[in-house]
């Protein structure tokens, strides 16, 4: 606990201790890790460290000696952390978040979002609930972003295919660009297919007839 509790702008001791919780983020996705770190810092947690890569993971975690470890569930290195629970280990022994079964809803939410948290022995669950909630919302937000991005990438790909098909038609049939697009669209409608599928067929056919 800090000595300047009574100083200006001091928060109640409980909160102050929480902001000083040392948090380690182990995530293979650097973007998601950055999003999570930002979120935690905004929430007032000042001691947040990202651990990237898999080399000597356990040693690096021990060196950091965090009170909370957050790891994504797509990470095979989760099993590496299990070694921390071994009886023969002399170091501080973290316990998994899953230990508290009374709160199965938040555990389910965490697993659904794809994140898991480990806390050191003796740390009260209430003190990390806000961290876990924050993780869940940031992980979900990241998943939404990711799917939007995938969608946008897909749309761009489709655009390119259609443009190339238009080019093929314009050259082979001496059409204008508008006419070429109209042909693709009408064909798609008649065959009950997407324009991009027709465009792809045009490209394939052009490739074969080369």
């Amino acid at each position: 606990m800090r000595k300047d509790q009574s100083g200006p702008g001091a928060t109640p001791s409980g909160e102050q201790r929480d902001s000083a919780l040392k948090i380690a983020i182990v995530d293979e996705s650097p973007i998601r890790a950055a999003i999570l770190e930002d979120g935690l810092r905004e929430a007032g947690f000042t001691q947040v460290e990202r651990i990237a890569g898999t080399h000597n993971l356990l040693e690096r975690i021990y060196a950091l000696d965090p009170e909370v470890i957050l790891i994504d569930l797509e990470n095979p290195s989760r099993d590496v952390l299990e070694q921390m629970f071994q009886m023969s280990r002399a170091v501080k022994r973290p316990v998994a978040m899953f230990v508290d079964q009374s709160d199965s809803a938040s555990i389910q939410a965490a697993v659904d979002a794809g994140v898991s948290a480990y806390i050191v022995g003796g740390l009260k669950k209430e003190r990390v609930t806000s961290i876990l909630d924050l993780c869940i919302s940031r992980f979900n937000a990241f998943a939404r972003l990711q799917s939007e991005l995938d969608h946008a990438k897909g749309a761009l790909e489709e655009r390119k295919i259609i443009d190339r098909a238009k080019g093929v038609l314009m050259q082979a049939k001496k059409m204008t660009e508008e006419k070429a697009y109209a042909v693709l669209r009408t064909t798609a409608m008649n065959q009950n297919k997407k324009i991009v599928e027709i465009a792809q067929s045009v490209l394939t056919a052009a490739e074969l007839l080369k």
Partner: protein
Amino acid sequence: MTQKLRIGYIPLVDATALLVAVDHGFAATEELDIELVREVSWSNVRDKLNIGLFDAAHLLSPVAIASSLGIGHVRVPLIAPFNLGFNGNAITVSPRLFTMLSSAADGDLTDPKVSTRALARVVAQLKSRGAEPLTFGMTFPFSNHNYQLRFWMAAGGVDPDEDVRLVVLPPPFMAESLANGQVDGFCVGAPWNSSAVNLGVGNILHFGCEIMTRVSEKVLALRENWAEENTDMVTRLVRALTRASRFVDEADNRDRVASIVAQRLGTTPELVVRTLTGNLKTAREGPVRTNGSYILVGRDGTNRPDPVQAAWAYAQIVRWRQAPLSEELRAAAQNVFRADIFDAVVGGPATVDCGDTRDSIGVFAGPEFEPGDIAGYLAFWQSNRVQRPRLSVVR
């Protein structure tokens, strides 16, 4: 009525019976609509089974026991009504360590008695030079990979906690870690040893069955309370898996099995066949080693969850100080392996063939295992702990 089930698994050859049950229609015949969910870590498999996201899981046998006893993690009673695989692991070492072991060997290195003595000499040499200790990778604290490495090392006088480093390493990282020197060796299941061999970064030193002739590797694990509420589903599941295992064992079906497993694992059918028949290259340009017991998917009665195997796993947990020894825990461990459910489904006890092992485990060193006297069994290893070969033995 068709029932939906979600089952988690890790892409390993010992999930074969489960994969074939689903992909070749044995589950559908039992009106089970199974969604197989591929996972990246045993922690995920265990936790998702524990909290009910999975109805069943392909699980390391010692994890099923540890979870039921509440060791190392939250206690969730699991049962294993079906044994998916016996054996299937191997110890692979870097070419550098292989050369060191070869020059320290006083006989044929394929004999684990010889290799463990050689290891002890190498460890002593490194220590006397003040070099870094050897590091070995294994897949999970509660796994045969951990216990087989430890058993092998300790038999030659190497203390796995003092003389070497043992680290958990996810199987997909094993070959790379061996190549870049992060580890000097590892114990892992198929197909990961062969991956390292094919890349030329490792030599298979031992098949797991050379250390322990018969050891339960993976079970189908269910939450005990779920199994009690869904007895009919458990019966159908065990029946589908039993049929799948018989199918796997018929030589005529080999191509079909290999193609199913290869597709699910992302490997080649050829490697799956080599694994299932126990014909593995031990070095990229080296000889093929053959052992019919390399991996057992139901053969010789290994589908039956054997309480002796559960006691053996618990004895390893105790030996390596992951849990205390008590009669209560021993009984609880044995109750995880539900031979009664299996026997009721398949109609009477299966014919179990333990080969020439007298205690049905068949380890290469030490006394026979007596499930009723774990304390006595472990006392042998306690008293033999300090017998280390001296440096003067080195040629």
